[in-house]
């Protein structure tokens, strides 16, 4: 008897609950898929597992207390939240911060980019089945976390930026360590390329998978590396420079095809870009002798004058925005967080996975770098 006849087939679609406890789903997030055999015919997202009402909690905490809360809005790259929130305070209050604070903040942001991208590579390695990439990328990410620990005192939630600058200056000898780590990373990335970028297995899985066109991407609010993978040079670091990016020299990384491979390659190339930017920043920091903070306030709590500000910055997931409204008191009157995952997972995923194979689902999910906390916030 042919083996095909032994397989029971159903002629009606099956509901498949994928996540939140599933290794292929990135974070506490779930999908309900309607599958016909191996084909996905419908997808529904199930958010809310991480809902902690951040925006409401921020209204009840003082400006300075909020810096311990906001990093939790994006777990793999917490520093974008710290930056956007504090930059909004500075914009409302009209403070000008010293160049050194800007440089240190940019260093932290770029290091966070590398660490988040390594995590992305790791998750993609798991999805494709190249497990050495997963282990290497997580191992090398730890060297970045070591640097964070020596600079900020913590490995994941740094709570390092504060209104007016950063909490501490760079410790002695830290820049040398950063240089060493960058050199080490460069050597390792060459190994990654040999392992993954040149592997026909990986290319056959990723090339042509879930492609999106620039028009489709812009219509669905796609930002960040996912948009750049379609060929649109949209990078807020270049278009609306914040921190010290206007003093740095870099080109926006783009790819043409808009498929999973292009999204993968944009991120891989942006690690190189971040290493280059960090080298430029090291030179600038060595020459600079301004203080690390402009702190006109004192003590336990301070008031921010009445006003509102929207700060949007480029994160590894996409465009992150903080809209902060102050009524002149000790607490923010209202904070609104614009997370990139709202459009990537909330809008895009339900549409793009229809007609795809079930085995590719976690790869598509991973290739968009879905990060649920900022959807649930």
């Amino acid at each position, binding site marked *: 008897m042919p083996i095909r006849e032994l397989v029971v087939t159903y002629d009606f679609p099956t509901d498949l609950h994928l996540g939140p406890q599933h290794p292929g789903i990135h974070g506490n997030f779930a999908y309900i898929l309607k599958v016909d055999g191996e084909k996905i015919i419908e997808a529904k997202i199930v958010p809310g597992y991480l809902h902690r009402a951040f925006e409401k909690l921020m209204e009840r905490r003082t400006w300075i207390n*909020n810096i*311990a809360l906001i990093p939790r809005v994006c777990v793999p790259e917490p520093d974008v939240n710290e930056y956007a929130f504090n930059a909004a305070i500075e914009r409302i209050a009209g403070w000008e911060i010293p160049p050194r604070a800007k440089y240190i903040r940019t260093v932290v942001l770029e290091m966070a980019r590398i660490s988040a991208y390594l995590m992305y590579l790791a998750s993609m390695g798991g999805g494709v089945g190249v497990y050495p990439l997963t282990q290497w990328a997580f191992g090398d990410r730890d060297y970045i976390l070591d640097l964070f620990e020596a600079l900020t*005192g913590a490995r994941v939630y740094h709570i390092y930026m504060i209104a007016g600058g950063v909490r501490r200056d760079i410790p002695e000898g830290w820049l040398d360590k950063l240089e060493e780590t960058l050199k080490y990373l460069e050597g390792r990335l060459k190994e990654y390329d*040999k*392992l993954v970028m040149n*592997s026909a297995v990986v290319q056959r899985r990723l090339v042509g998978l879930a492609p999106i066109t620039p028009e489709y991407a812009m219509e669905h609010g796609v930002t960040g590396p996912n948009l750049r993978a379609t060929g649109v040079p949209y990078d807020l670091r270049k278009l609306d420079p914040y921190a010290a990016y206007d003093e740095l020299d870099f080109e926006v990384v783009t790819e043409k095809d808009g498929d999973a491979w292009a999204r993968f390659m944009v991120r891989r190339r942006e690690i190189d870009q971040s290493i280059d930017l960090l080298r430029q920043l090291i030179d600038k920091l060595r020459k600079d002798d*301004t203080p690390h903070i402009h*702190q006109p306030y004192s003590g*336990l709590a301070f008031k921010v004058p009445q006003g509102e500000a929207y700060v949007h910055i480029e994160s590894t997931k996409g465009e992150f925005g903080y809209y902060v409204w102050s009524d002149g008191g000790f607490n923010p009157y209202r904070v609104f967080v614009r997370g990139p995952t709202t459009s990537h997972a909330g809008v895009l995923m339900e549409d793009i996975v229809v007609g795809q194979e079930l085995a590719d689902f976690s790869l598509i999910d991973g290739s968009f770098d879905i990060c649920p906390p900022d959807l649930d916030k």
Partner: protein
Amino acid sequence: MIGYLAPLRALKFLFIKPHTVRVPDKVWPRWPDFADPREGKSVYRGTHDNDWTKCIGCGNCSRICPAMAIEMKEVPKEVLDEIGAKGVNKRPQIDYGRCTFCALCVDVCPSGSLTMTDNYTWVTTDARDHRYFFPGAEKWKYASGDVHTWHKNPQSDLLRPKPWVKKPPQPAGEGK
């Protein structure tokens, strides 16, 4: 070079030393079964320590705590008199179920008594030790590491304003 055999290059790493760190033999004084995985970096924000002789019981730490984890708890006057402590007879007690290890409490400590140590792990068999961690008290001495990594520092002191005034650019031709 693109090929199906490219991933096999990873095999050479079988002969390279691993970069994971072995658990050192340094053990906890009170709980010898649990090894300390590693030492923290020079500014690491680990478990708290409080020098009761320096502490004045002002309560700044409890006021700034974003997680509302710190409660000022009364200590018998005799205990403080014995060690020659000054100020109010209250000392901070921390709920480690809530603490976020942000170290804002350390940065607003006027006397510099509250510090954070390089302790990565802290193991106890009594759940109440986490809920009512009382840094500085005799019972919790084992949880306070020897190295005070994040401590009061003129750089990070939040109580002292540090305004920065931008210097006007020097006009060309002046100064010499």
